[in-house]
Protein backbone atom coordinates (compact mmCIF):
# COMPACT_ATOMS: atom_id res chain seq x y z
CA UNK A 1 0.00 0.00 0.00
CA UNK A 2 1.63 3.18 -1.08
CA UNK A 3 1.21 6.37 0.80
CA UNK A 4 0.99 9.78 -0.76
CA UNK A 5 4.34 11.44 -0.37
CA UNK A 6 3.27 14.40 1.68
CA UNK A 7 0.18 13.33 3.55
CA UNK A 8 -0.05 16.68 5.26
CA UNK A 9 -0.15 18.54 1.99
CA UNK A 10 -3.07 16.62 0.63
CA UNK A 11 -5.31 16.93 3.64
CA UNK A 12 -8.47 18.76 2.65
CA UNK A 13 -8.04 21.75 4.90
CA UNK A 14 -4.46 22.41 3.80
CA UNK A 15 -5.44 22.14 0.19
CA UNK A 16 -8.19 24.66 0.75
CA UNK A 17 -5.85 26.98 2.59
CA UNK A 18 -3.30 26.68 -0.19
CA UNK A 19 -5.79 27.38 -2.85
CA UNK A 20 -7.88 30.07 -1.23
CA UNK A 21 -5.64 31.88 1.20
CA UNK A 22 -1.96 31.48 0.48
CA UNK A 23 -1.85 33.64 -2.66
CA UNK A 24 -2.90 36.54 -0.47
CA UNK A 25 -0.69 35.55 2.40
CA UNK A 26 2.38 35.31 0.23
CA UNK A 27 2.14 38.38 -1.98
CA UNK A 28 1.66 42.00 -0.99
CA UNK A 29 0.32 42.96 -4.36
CA UNK A 30 -2.48 40.40 -4.01
CA UNK A 31 -3.46 41.81 -0.62
CA UNK A 32 -3.50 45.33 -1.96
CA UNK A 33 -5.53 44.27 -4.98
CA UNK A 34 -8.04 42.60 -2.67
CA UNK A 35 -8.38 45.55 -0.33
CA UNK A 36 -8.52 48.09 -3.14
CA UNK A 37 -11.14 46.22 -5.13
CA UNK A 38 -13.15 45.56 -1.94
CA UNK A 39 -13.26 49.31 -1.30
CA UNK A 40 -14.51 49.88 -4.81
CA UNK A 41 -17.14 47.16 -4.51
CA UNK A 42 -18.48 48.42 -1.18
CA UNK A 43 -19.25 51.86 -2.58
CA UNK A 44 -19.90 50.77 -6.13
CA UNK A 45 -22.65 48.30 -5.30
CA UNK A 46 -25.04 50.80 -3.67
CA UNK A 47 -24.33 53.40 -6.33
CA UNK A 48 -25.01 50.79 -8.97
CA UNK A 49 -28.35 49.88 -7.38
CA UNK A 50 -29.52 53.48 -7.61
CA UNK A 51 -28.16 53.89 -11.14
CA UNK A 52 -30.10 50.83 -12.17
CA UNK A 53 -33.32 51.93 -10.50
CA UNK A 54 -33.01 55.42 -11.97
CA UNK A 55 -32.53 53.86 -15.41
CA UNK A 56 -29.02 55.23 -15.72
CA UNK A 57 -27.18 51.95 -16.18
CA UNK A 58 -25.11 53.08 -19.17
CA UNK A 59 -23.78 56.17 -17.44
CA UNK A 60 -20.52 54.46 -16.54
CA UNK A 61 -19.49 53.86 -20.11
CA UNK A 62 -20.59 57.33 -21.20
CA UNK A 63 -18.59 58.87 -18.38
CA UNK A 64 -15.43 57.04 -19.42
CA UNK A 65 -15.54 59.03 -22.65
CA UNK A 66 -16.90 62.24 -21.21
CA UNK A 67 -13.83 62.91 -19.09
CA UNK A 68 -11.48 63.16 -22.08
CA UNK A 69 -11.35 66.97 -22.46
CA UNK A 70 -10.55 67.37 -18.78
CA UNK A 71 -7.76 64.83 -19.05
CA UNK A 72 -6.54 66.50 -22.25
CA UNK A 73 -6.39 69.92 -20.63
CA UNK A 74 -4.55 68.45 -17.65
CA UNK A 75 -2.11 66.91 -20.10
CA UNK A 76 -1.67 70.19 -21.98
CA UNK A 77 -0.87 72.02 -18.78
CA UNK A 78 1.25 69.51 -16.94
CA UNK A 79 2.21 66.79 -19.36
CA UNK A 80 1.87 63.09 -18.56
CA UNK A 81 1.36 63.58 -14.88
CA UNK A 82 -1.38 61.66 -13.10
CA UNK A 83 -2.47 64.28 -10.57
CA UNK A 84 -3.51 67.06 -12.96
CA UNK A 85 -4.96 64.59 -15.44
CA UNK A 86 -7.15 62.99 -12.77
CA UNK A 87 -8.22 66.39 -11.54
CA UNK A 88 -9.07 67.45 -15.07
CA UNK A 89 -11.01 64.23 -15.50
CA UNK A 90 -13.02 64.94 -12.37
CA UNK A 91 -13.83 68.47 -13.49
CA UNK A 92 -14.98 67.32 -16.91
CA UNK A 93 -16.96 64.46 -15.40
CA UNK A 94 -18.74 66.73 -12.92
CA UNK A 95 -19.48 69.27 -15.63
CA UNK A 96 -21.03 66.70 -17.94
CA UNK A 97 -22.97 64.94 -15.19
CA UNK A 98 -24.33 68.11 -13.65
CA UNK A 99 -25.14 69.77 -16.97
CA UNK A 100 -26.86 66.63 -18.22
CA UNK A 101 -28.79 66.22 -14.99
CA UNK A 102 -29.76 69.87 -14.85
CA UNK A 103 -30.99 70.00 -18.43
CA UNK A 104 -33.01 66.81 -17.95
CA UNK A 105 -34.62 68.36 -14.92
CA UNK A 106 -35.79 71.59 -16.54
CA UNK A 107 -36.47 70.62 -20.14
CA UNK A 108 -38.40 68.01 -22.06
CA UNK A 109 -35.28 65.93 -22.64
CA UNK A 110 -34.97 62.94 -20.38
CA UNK A 111 -31.95 61.82 -18.43
CA UNK A 112 -30.54 59.35 -20.95
CA UNK A 113 -30.74 61.56 -24.03
CA UNK A 114 -29.37 64.49 -22.08
CA UNK A 115 -26.36 62.54 -20.94
CA UNK A 116 -25.77 61.10 -24.41
CA UNK A 117 -25.79 64.59 -25.88
CA UNK A 118 -23.34 66.01 -23.39
CA UNK A 119 -20.90 63.15 -23.29
CA UNK A 120 -20.66 63.10 -27.07
CA UNK A 121 -19.96 66.82 -27.14
CA UNK A 122 -17.40 66.34 -24.44
CA UNK A 123 -15.71 63.44 -26.19
CA UNK A 124 -15.47 65.32 -29.49
CA UNK A 125 -14.06 68.32 -27.66
CA UNK A 126 -11.47 66.11 -26.03
CA UNK A 127 -10.41 64.48 -29.27
CA UNK A 128 -10.04 67.90 -30.87
CA UNK A 129 -7.92 69.20 -28.02
CA UNK A 130 -5.66 66.17 -28.21
CA UNK A 131 -5.22 66.45 -31.96
CA UNK A 132 -4.35 70.15 -31.66
CA UNK A 133 -1.41 69.27 -29.52
CA UNK A 134 -0.35 66.86 -32.20
CA UNK A 135 0.73 64.06 -29.97
CA UNK A 136 -0.57 60.57 -30.35
CA UNK A 137 -0.46 59.35 -26.79
CA UNK A 138 -3.56 57.43 -25.83
CA UNK A 139 -4.52 59.65 -22.92
CA UNK A 140 -7.35 57.59 -21.58
CA UNK A 141 -5.18 54.52 -21.58
CA UNK A 142 -2.62 56.36 -19.54
CA UNK A 143 -5.15 57.56 -17.05
CA UNK A 144 -6.62 54.18 -16.32
CA UNK A 145 -4.95 52.04 -13.77
CA UNK A 146 -4.79 48.36 -13.03
CA UNK A 147 -5.92 46.43 -9.98
CA UNK A 148 -2.49 44.81 -9.67
CA UNK A 149 -0.67 48.13 -9.61
CA UNK A 150 -2.26 49.94 -6.69
CA UNK A 151 0.23 52.40 -5.32
CA UNK A 152 -0.20 54.05 -1.93
CA UNK A 153 -1.95 57.12 -3.32
CA UNK A 154 -4.33 54.96 -5.29
CA UNK A 155 -5.23 52.94 -2.19
CA UNK A 156 -5.89 56.09 -0.18
CA UNK A 157 -7.93 57.53 -3.03
CA UNK A 158 -10.18 54.51 -3.35
CA UNK A 159 -10.61 54.11 0.41
CA UNK A 160 -11.40 57.80 0.80
CA UNK A 161 -13.94 57.82 -2.00
CA UNK A 162 -15.56 54.71 -0.58
CA UNK A 163 -15.98 56.22 2.88
CA UNK A 164 -17.24 59.51 1.53
CA UNK A 165 -19.74 57.77 -0.72
CA UNK A 166 -21.21 55.63 2.03
CA UNK A 167 -21.54 58.63 4.33
CA UNK A 168 -23.20 60.74 1.66
CA UNK A 169 -25.56 57.96 0.64
CA UNK A 170 -26.63 57.44 4.23
CA UNK A 171 -27.38 61.14 4.40
CA UNK A 172 -29.48 61.41 1.25
CA UNK A 173 -30.94 57.90 1.35
CA UNK A 174 -34.53 58.76 2.08
CA UNK A 175 -34.98 61.63 -0.40
CA UNK A 176 -33.01 59.75 -3.03
CA UNK A 177 -35.29 56.73 -2.77
CA UNK A 178 -38.35 58.95 -2.97
CA UNK A 179 -36.93 60.88 -5.88
CA UNK A 180 -36.52 57.60 -7.70
CA UNK A 181 -39.83 55.93 -6.96
CA UNK A 182 -42.19 58.94 -6.79
CA UNK A 183 -40.52 62.21 -7.80
CA UNK A 184 -43.87 64.01 -7.98
CA UNK A 185 -44.53 63.29 -4.34
CA UNK A 186 -41.09 64.45 -3.27
CA UNK A 187 -41.56 67.63 -5.21
CA UNK A 188 -44.85 68.29 -3.46
CA UNK A 189 -43.43 67.95 0.03
CA UNK A 190 -39.88 69.18 -0.29
CA UNK A 191 -37.44 71.24 -2.28
CA UNK A 192 -34.70 68.66 -1.81
CA UNK A 193 -35.26 66.85 -5.10
CA UNK A 194 -32.86 68.68 -7.44
CA UNK A 195 -30.15 68.94 -4.80
CA UNK A 196 -30.32 65.24 -4.02
CA UNK A 197 -30.15 64.43 -7.69
CA UNK A 198 -27.02 66.52 -8.15
CA UNK A 199 -25.33 65.06 -5.10
CA UNK A 200 -26.00 61.59 -6.42
CA UNK A 201 -24.55 62.46 -9.82
CA UNK A 202 -21.50 63.91 -8.15
CA UNK A 203 -21.03 60.66 -6.22
CA UNK A 204 -21.31 58.70 -9.44
CA UNK A 205 -18.62 60.77 -11.12
CA UNK A 206 -16.37 60.60 -8.08
CA UNK A 207 -16.59 56.84 -7.91
CA UNK A 208 -16.12 56.38 -11.61
CA UNK A 209 -13.15 58.69 -12.12
CA UNK A 210 -11.48 57.49 -8.95
CA UNK A 211 -12.20 53.93 -9.94
CA UNK A 212 -10.78 54.44 -13.43
CA UNK A 213 -7.65 55.94 -12.03
CA UNK A 214 -7.01 53.18 -9.57
CA UNK A 215 -8.39 50.12 -11.24
CA UNK A 216 -9.31 50.74 -14.85
CA UNK A 217 -12.63 51.42 -16.56
CA UNK A 218 -13.78 47.85 -17.00
CA UNK A 219 -13.38 47.04 -13.35
CA UNK A 220 -14.85 50.28 -12.05
CA UNK A 221 -18.00 50.09 -14.12
CA UNK A 222 -18.26 46.32 -13.86
CA UNK A 223 -18.16 46.31 -10.06
CA UNK A 224 -20.83 48.96 -10.06
CA UNK A 225 -23.43 47.48 -12.36
CA UNK A 226 -23.13 43.70 -12.25
CA UNK A 227 -23.52 43.14 -8.49
CA UNK A 228 -26.38 45.66 -8.45
CA UNK A 229 -28.22 43.86 -11.22
CA UNK A 230 -27.56 40.52 -9.52
CA UNK A 231 -29.01 41.70 -6.21
CA UNK A 232 -32.36 42.38 -7.86
CA UNK A 233 -32.92 38.68 -8.30
CA UNK A 234 -32.48 37.93 -4.63
CA UNK A 235 -34.63 40.61 -3.07
CA UNK A 236 -37.48 42.96 -3.86
CA UNK A 237 -36.54 45.27 -1.03
CA UNK A 238 -34.11 48.04 -1.75
CA UNK A 239 -32.78 48.05 1.81
CA UNK A 240 -31.63 44.47 1.26
CA UNK A 241 -30.39 45.00 -2.30
CA UNK A 242 -27.91 47.63 -1.21
CA UNK A 243 -25.79 45.61 1.21
CA UNK A 244 -26.26 42.53 -0.93
CA UNK A 245 -24.81 44.23 -4.00
CA UNK A 246 -21.75 45.22 -1.99
CA UNK A 247 -21.34 41.67 -0.73
CA UNK A 248 -21.72 40.15 -4.19
CA UNK A 249 -19.17 42.62 -5.49
CA UNK A 250 -16.68 41.61 -2.85
CA UNK A 251 -17.26 37.96 -3.63
CA UNK A 252 -16.50 38.69 -7.28
CA UNK A 253 -13.26 40.47 -6.35
CA UNK A 254 -12.07 37.59 -4.23
CA UNK A 255 -12.91 34.82 -6.66
CA UNK A 256 -11.73 36.85 -9.66
CA UNK A 257 -8.34 37.45 -8.12
CA UNK A 258 -8.01 33.78 -7.28
CA UNK A 259 -8.89 32.86 -10.85
CA UNK A 260 -6.31 35.31 -12.15
CA UNK A 261 -3.75 33.76 -9.89
CA UNK A 262 -4.43 30.08 -10.41
CA UNK A 263 -5.60 30.13 -14.02
CA UNK A 264 -3.23 32.81 -15.31
CA UNK A 265 -5.97 35.15 -16.53
CA UNK A 266 -5.88 38.93 -16.83
CA UNK A 267 -6.81 40.30 -13.42
CA UNK A 268 -9.34 43.06 -14.03
CA UNK A 269 -11.38 41.10 -16.56
CA UNK A 270 -11.30 38.05 -14.28
CA UNK A 271 -13.03 39.96 -11.53
CA UNK A 272 -15.63 41.27 -13.94
CA UNK A 273 -16.15 37.79 -15.36
CA UNK A 274 -16.64 36.47 -11.84
CA UNK A 275 -19.22 39.22 -11.29
CA UNK A 276 -20.79 38.16 -14.57
CA UNK A 277 -20.98 34.54 -13.48
CA UNK A 278 -22.65 35.63 -10.27
CA UNK A 279 -25.10 37.63 -12.37
CA UNK A 280 -26.00 34.67 -14.58
CA UNK A 281 -26.49 32.45 -11.54
CA UNK A 282 -28.68 35.11 -9.95
CA UNK A 283 -30.64 35.58 -13.14
CA UNK A 284 -31.44 31.90 -13.24
CA UNK A 285 -31.75 30.95 -9.63
CA UNK A 286 -32.27 34.10 -7.62
CA UNK A 287 -34.93 33.55 -5.04
CA UNK A 288 -36.91 36.70 -5.67
CA UNK A 289 -37.06 36.77 -9.43
CA UNK A 290 -34.87 34.08 -10.93
CA UNK A 291 -36.03 32.64 -14.22
CA UNK A 292 -35.84 29.01 -13.20
CA UNK A 293 -38.35 29.51 -10.42
CA UNK A 294 -40.94 30.45 -12.99
CA UNK A 295 -40.73 27.04 -14.55
CA UNK A 296 -41.70 25.25 -11.36
CA UNK A 297 -45.35 24.67 -10.62
CA UNK A 298 -46.57 27.00 -7.89
CA UNK A 299 -49.48 27.10 -5.57
CA UNK A 300 -52.16 29.23 -7.19
CA UNK A 301 -53.70 30.62 -4.10
CA UNK A 302 -51.76 30.99 -0.89
CA UNK A 303 -53.83 29.80 2.04
Amino acid at each position, binding site marked *: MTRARNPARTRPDTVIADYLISPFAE*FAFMRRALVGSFALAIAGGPIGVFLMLRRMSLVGDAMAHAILPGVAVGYLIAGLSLGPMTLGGLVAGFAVALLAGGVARVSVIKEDASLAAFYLISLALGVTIVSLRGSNV*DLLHVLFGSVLALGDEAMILVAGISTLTLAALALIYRPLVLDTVDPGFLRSVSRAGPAVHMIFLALVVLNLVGGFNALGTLLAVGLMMLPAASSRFWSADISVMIPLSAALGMLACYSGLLASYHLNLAAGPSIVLAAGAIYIISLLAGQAAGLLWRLLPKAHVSR
Partner: protein
Amino acid sequence: MLDRRTLIAAAAAALALPGALVAQEAKLPVVASFSILGDLVQAIGGARIELTTLVQPGSDAHVYKPTPADAKAVASARVVITNGLKFEGWMARLMQASASKAALVEASRGVKAVEAQGDKPGHGHGGHSHRGLDPHAWQSVANVKIYVANIRDALAAADPAGRLLFEGNAARYLAELDALEAEIRRQVARIPPDKRRVITSHDAFGYFSAAYGVEFIAPRGLSTETEASAKDVARLIQQIRRENVTAVFVETISDQRLIEQIARETGAKVGGTLFSDALSPANGPASTYILMMRHNATTIAAALAPNS
Protein backbone atom coordinates in the same frame (compact mmCIF):
# COMPACT_ATOMS: atom_id res chain seq x y z
CA MET B 1 21.24 79.43 -90.78
CA LEU B 2 20.45 81.93 -88.03
CA ASP B 3 16.95 83.08 -88.94
CA ARG B 4 14.64 84.87 -86.48
CA ARG B 5 12.87 81.74 -85.29
CA THR B 6 16.06 80.00 -84.35
CA LEU B 7 17.25 83.10 -82.51
CA ILE B 8 14.09 83.20 -80.42
CA ALA B 9 14.37 79.51 -79.62
CA ALA B 10 17.98 79.94 -78.58
CA ALA B 11 17.06 82.93 -76.39
CA ALA B 12 14.32 80.93 -74.73
CA ALA B 13 16.70 78.07 -74.06
CA ALA B 14 19.25 80.48 -72.65
CA LEU B 15 16.66 81.92 -70.28
CA ALA B 16 15.62 78.46 -69.15
CA LEU B 17 19.11 77.38 -68.25
CA PRO B 18 19.47 79.32 -65.00
CA GLY B 19 16.02 78.00 -64.06
CA ALA B 20 17.24 74.45 -64.54
CA LEU B 21 20.30 75.14 -62.47
CA VAL B 22 18.19 76.64 -59.69
CA ALA B 23 15.95 73.57 -59.74
CA GLN B 24 18.92 71.37 -59.29
CA GLU B 25 20.01 73.25 -56.17
CA ALA B 26 16.60 72.59 -54.46
CA LYS B 27 16.75 70.12 -51.60
CA LEU B 28 15.74 66.51 -51.95
CA PRO B 29 12.43 65.94 -50.14
CA VAL B 30 12.72 62.89 -47.88
CA VAL B 31 10.27 61.39 -45.41
CA ALA B 32 11.40 59.24 -42.50
CA SER B 33 8.81 57.18 -40.67
CA PHE B 34 9.82 57.79 -37.03
CA SER B 35 12.19 59.77 -34.86
CA ILE B 36 15.12 57.33 -34.66
CA LEU B 37 15.22 56.89 -38.41
CA GLY B 38 14.80 60.61 -38.86
CA ASP B 39 17.91 61.25 -36.84
CA LEU B 40 19.95 58.81 -38.94
CA VAL B 41 18.65 60.17 -42.23
CA GLN B 42 19.42 63.75 -41.22
CA ALA B 43 22.93 62.79 -40.21
CA ILE B 44 23.60 61.32 -43.63
CA GLY B 45 21.57 63.66 -45.79
CA GLY B 46 22.84 66.84 -44.24
CA ALA B 47 21.93 70.11 -45.93
CA ARG B 48 21.00 68.50 -49.21
CA ILE B 49 17.76 67.03 -47.98
CA GLU B 50 14.48 68.46 -46.73
CA LEU B 51 13.47 65.94 -44.06
CA THR B 52 10.00 65.32 -42.66
CA THR B 53 9.62 62.86 -39.80
CA LEU B 54 6.18 61.39 -39.32
CA VAL B 55 6.06 59.87 -35.82
CA GLN B 56 7.47 62.49 -33.49
CA PRO B 57 9.50 61.88 -30.33
CA GLY B 58 7.16 60.83 -27.57
CA SER B 59 4.61 59.22 -29.86
CA ASP B 60 4.13 55.52 -30.40
CA ALA B 61 4.87 54.24 -33.90
CA HIS B 62 3.03 50.96 -33.31
CA VAL B 63 -0.35 52.64 -33.14
CA TYR B 64 0.31 55.78 -35.13
CA LYS B 65 -2.53 57.31 -37.14
CA PRO B 66 -1.26 59.43 -40.05
CA THR B 67 -2.63 62.93 -40.47
CA PRO B 68 -3.47 64.84 -43.66
CA ALA B 69 -0.22 66.75 -43.26
CA ASP B 70 1.62 63.42 -43.34
CA ALA B 71 -0.13 62.44 -46.55
CA LYS B 72 0.95 65.70 -48.13
CA ALA B 73 4.55 65.20 -47.08
CA VAL B 74 4.62 61.67 -48.44
CA ALA B 75 3.02 62.75 -51.71
CA SER B 76 5.68 65.35 -52.39
CA ALA B 77 8.62 63.23 -51.22
CA ARG B 78 11.12 61.58 -53.51
CA VAL B 79 12.36 59.07 -50.96
CA VAL B 80 10.41 57.51 -48.09
CA ILE B 81 12.50 55.65 -45.55
CA THR B 82 10.91 53.15 -43.16
CA ASN B 83 12.27 50.68 -40.69
CA GLY B 84 10.62 47.65 -42.18
CA LEU B 85 10.18 44.31 -40.35
CA LYS B 86 6.48 45.19 -40.08
CA PHE B 87 7.17 48.05 -37.70
CA GLU B 88 5.05 50.56 -39.59
CA GLY B 89 1.82 48.75 -40.32
CA TRP B 90 0.21 51.95 -41.49
CA MET B 91 2.77 52.99 -44.10
CA ALA B 92 1.53 50.91 -47.00
CA ARG B 93 -1.93 52.42 -46.80
CA LEU B 94 -0.51 55.91 -46.44
CA MET B 95 1.64 55.48 -49.57
CA GLN B 96 -1.37 54.26 -51.50
CA ALA B 97 -3.70 56.95 -50.23
CA SER B 98 -1.29 59.75 -51.05
CA ALA B 99 -0.50 58.32 -54.51
CA SER B 100 3.13 59.01 -53.82
CA LYS B 101 5.71 58.32 -56.46
CA ALA B 102 8.53 58.23 -53.95
CA ALA B 103 10.96 55.39 -53.65
CA LEU B 104 10.06 53.31 -50.57
CA VAL B 105 13.16 52.12 -48.75
CA GLU B 106 13.42 49.70 -45.84
CA ALA B 107 16.40 50.66 -43.76
CA SER B 108 16.64 47.23 -42.18
CA ARG B 109 17.17 45.39 -45.43
CA GLY B 110 19.99 42.98 -45.02
CA VAL B 111 19.77 42.88 -41.25
CA LYS B 112 19.69 39.44 -39.70
CA ALA B 113 16.29 39.54 -38.06
CA VAL B 114 15.51 37.90 -34.77
CA GLU B 115 12.20 36.42 -33.75
CA ALA B 116 10.14 38.40 -31.33
CA GLN B 117 10.51 36.96 -27.87
CA GLY B 118 6.81 37.05 -27.24
CA ASP B 119 5.52 38.12 -23.89
CA LYS B 120 6.61 35.36 -21.62
CA PRO B 121 8.31 35.61 -18.29
CA GLY B 122 11.95 34.68 -18.25
CA HIS B 123 13.14 31.67 -20.10
CA GLY B 124 11.22 28.58 -19.42
CA HIS B 125 9.17 28.05 -22.45
CA GLY B 126 11.20 26.29 -25.10
CA GLY B 127 11.15 29.39 -27.22
CA HIS B 128 8.10 28.76 -29.30
CA SER B 129 6.65 32.11 -30.06
CA HIS B 130 4.49 32.66 -33.04
CA ARG B 131 4.65 36.39 -32.98
CA GLY B 132 6.76 37.21 -36.01
CA LEU B 133 9.98 39.13 -36.27
CA ASP B 134 11.20 41.66 -33.76
CA PRO B 135 11.42 45.00 -35.58
CA HIS B 136 13.58 46.87 -33.04
CA ALA B 137 16.78 46.08 -34.95
CA TRP B 138 18.32 49.47 -34.17
CA GLN B 139 19.02 48.37 -30.64
CA SER B 140 22.22 46.80 -31.94
CA VAL B 141 24.77 49.28 -33.27
CA ALA B 142 26.04 46.75 -35.81
CA ASN B 143 22.60 46.71 -37.39
CA VAL B 144 22.50 50.47 -37.56
CA LYS B 145 25.65 50.39 -39.65
CA ILE B 146 23.62 48.44 -42.19
CA TYR B 147 20.83 51.01 -41.85
CA VAL B 148 23.31 53.79 -42.61
CA ALA B 149 24.54 52.01 -45.73
CA ASN B 150 21.01 51.50 -47.00
CA ILE B 151 20.04 55.10 -46.33
CA ARG B 152 23.18 56.41 -47.99
CA ASP B 153 22.54 54.32 -51.10
CA ALA B 154 18.87 55.32 -51.29
CA LEU B 155 19.67 59.02 -51.05
CA ALA B 156 22.41 58.73 -53.64
CA ALA B 157 20.10 56.90 -56.01
CA ALA B 158 17.56 59.69 -55.81
CA ASP B 159 20.11 62.50 -55.90
CA PRO B 160 23.25 61.36 -57.73
CA ALA B 161 24.78 64.80 -57.59
CA GLY B 162 24.92 64.53 -53.85
CA ARG B 163 26.59 61.14 -53.74
CA LEU B 164 29.93 62.40 -52.53
CA LEU B 165 28.34 64.40 -49.72
CA PHE B 166 26.23 61.46 -48.57
CA GLU B 167 29.18 59.10 -48.60
CA GLY B 168 31.26 61.54 -46.60
CA ASN B 169 28.54 62.04 -43.98
CA ALA B 170 27.95 58.32 -43.78
CA ALA B 171 31.59 57.56 -43.27
CA ARG B 172 31.84 60.09 -40.47
CA TYR B 173 28.73 58.74 -38.80
CA LEU B 174 29.98 55.15 -39.05
CA ALA B 175 33.08 56.19 -37.19
CA GLU B 176 30.92 57.67 -34.44
CA LEU B 177 28.99 54.44 -34.32
CA ASP B 178 32.18 52.52 -33.77
CA ALA B 179 32.99 54.73 -30.81
CA LEU B 180 29.47 54.23 -29.49
CA GLU B 181 29.75 50.46 -29.76
CA ALA B 182 32.96 50.46 -27.80
CA GLU B 183 31.44 52.63 -25.12
CA ILE B 184 28.42 50.40 -24.74
CA ARG B 185 30.62 47.39 -24.30
CA ARG B 186 32.67 49.28 -21.73
CA GLN B 187 29.56 50.09 -19.76
CA VAL B 188 28.29 46.54 -19.82
CA ALA B 189 31.67 45.30 -18.73
CA ARG B 190 31.26 47.25 -15.51
CA ILE B 191 28.44 44.95 -14.54
CA PRO B 192 29.32 41.64 -12.94
CA PRO B 193 28.29 38.85 -15.34
CA ASP B 194 25.85 37.30 -12.91
CA LYS B 195 23.96 40.56 -12.55
CA ARG B 196 23.36 41.27 -16.21
CA ARG B 197 19.61 40.98 -16.15
CA VAL B 198 16.91 43.60 -15.84
CA ILE B 199 13.17 43.79 -15.83
CA THR B 200 11.58 46.09 -18.30
CA SER B 201 8.05 46.57 -19.51
CA HIS B 202 8.38 46.57 -23.25
CA ASP B 203 9.60 43.66 -25.28
CA ALA B 204 11.91 45.80 -27.42
CA PHE B 205 15.47 44.96 -26.44
CA GLY B 206 15.97 41.58 -28.09
CA TYR B 207 18.75 42.86 -30.36
CA PHE B 208 20.48 44.69 -27.52
CA SER B 209 20.33 41.55 -25.48
CA ALA B 210 21.84 39.42 -28.26
CA ALA B 211 24.56 41.93 -29.07
CA TYR B 212 25.72 43.00 -25.62
CA GLY B 213 24.81 40.13 -23.31
CA VAL B 214 22.31 41.76 -20.98
CA GLU B 215 19.17 39.77 -20.36
CA PHE B 216 15.87 41.66 -20.63
CA ILE B 217 12.90 40.16 -18.96
CA ALA B 218 9.64 41.62 -20.17
CA PRO B 219 6.78 39.70 -18.66
CA ARG B 220 3.42 39.54 -20.29
CA GLY B 221 0.99 42.20 -19.20
CA LEU B 222 3.51 44.84 -18.29
CA SER B 223 3.19 46.53 -21.64
CA THR B 224 0.23 48.67 -22.49
CA GLU B 225 -1.20 46.24 -24.98
CA THR B 226 -2.13 43.35 -22.73
CA GLU B 227 -3.41 43.11 -19.21
CA ALA B 228 -1.48 41.43 -16.48
CA SER B 229 -2.61 38.29 -14.73
CA ALA B 230 -1.94 37.79 -11.06
CA LYS B 231 -0.05 34.62 -11.85
CA ASP B 232 2.36 36.45 -14.13
CA VAL B 233 3.09 39.06 -11.54
CA ALA B 234 3.51 36.43 -8.83
CA ARG B 235 5.86 34.38 -10.97
CA LEU B 236 7.88 37.44 -11.82
CA ILE B 237 8.22 38.42 -8.19
CA GLN B 238 9.31 34.92 -7.33
CA GLN B 239 11.86 34.97 -10.15
CA ILE B 240 13.24 38.33 -9.08
CA ARG B 241 13.63 37.05 -5.55
CA ARG B 242 15.18 33.79 -6.66
CA GLU B 243 17.62 35.21 -9.18
CA ASN B 244 18.30 38.39 -7.33
CA VAL B 245 17.49 40.81 -10.10
CA THR B 246 18.26 44.21 -8.73
CA ALA B 247 16.88 46.66 -11.25
CA VAL B 248 13.60 47.35 -13.01
CA PHE B 249 13.08 49.98 -15.64
CA VAL B 250 10.03 51.87 -16.80
CA GLU B 251 9.26 53.11 -20.22
CA THR B 252 5.96 54.85 -20.26
CA ILE B 253 3.85 56.18 -17.48
CA SER B 254 1.14 53.60 -17.82
CA ASP B 255 3.29 50.68 -16.77
CA GLN B 256 5.16 52.71 -14.21
CA ARG B 257 2.77 51.88 -11.43
CA LEU B 258 2.91 48.14 -11.90
CA ILE B 259 6.70 48.23 -12.07
CA GLU B 260 6.82 50.26 -8.88
CA GLN B 261 4.52 47.79 -7.20
CA ILE B 262 6.85 44.94 -8.14
CA ALA B 263 9.90 46.92 -7.09
CA ARG B 264 8.31 47.66 -3.75
CA GLU B 265 7.53 44.07 -3.06
CA THR B 266 10.87 42.61 -4.15
CA GLY B 267 13.22 45.34 -3.03
CA ALA B 268 14.51 45.78 -6.57
CA LYS B 269 15.44 49.31 -7.58
CA VAL B 270 13.57 51.31 -10.14
CA GLY B 271 16.61 52.09 -12.20
CA GLY B 272 15.30 54.82 -14.45
CA THR B 273 13.79 55.22 -17.86
CA LEU B 274 14.87 53.39 -20.98
CA PHE B 275 14.12 54.53 -24.49
CA SER B 276 13.32 51.86 -26.99
CA ASP B 277 10.94 52.93 -29.75
CA ALA B 278 11.49 56.63 -30.07
CA LEU B 279 13.85 59.40 -29.20
CA SER B 280 13.07 61.72 -26.34
CA PRO B 281 12.00 65.28 -27.11
CA ALA B 282 14.81 67.70 -27.82
CA ASN B 283 15.27 68.71 -24.20
CA GLY B 284 15.44 65.10 -22.99
CA PRO B 285 18.39 62.75 -22.50
CA ALA B 286 17.90 60.75 -25.69
CA SER B 287 17.36 63.30 -28.44
CA THR B 288 19.56 61.57 -31.01
CA TYR B 289 20.20 57.93 -31.73
CA ILE B 290 23.73 57.99 -30.31
CA LEU B 291 22.58 59.82 -27.20
CA MET B 292 19.77 57.34 -26.78
CA MET B 293 21.97 54.26 -26.92
CA ARG B 294 24.52 55.85 -24.65
CA HIS B 295 21.78 56.82 -22.17
CA ASN B 296 20.33 53.31 -22.10
CA ALA B 297 23.71 51.66 -21.57
CA THR B 298 24.75 54.12 -18.89
CA THR B 299 21.44 53.84 -17.06
CA ILE B 300 21.55 50.06 -17.01
CA ALA B 301 25.15 50.01 -15.87
CA ALA B 302 24.48 52.57 -13.19
CA ALA B 303 21.69 50.48 -11.75
CA LEU B 304 23.50 47.15 -11.81
CA ALA B 305 27.18 47.91 -11.29
CA PRO B 306 28.45 47.40 -7.72
CA ASN B 307 29.60 50.87 -6.85
CA SER B 308 26.29 52.50 -7.62
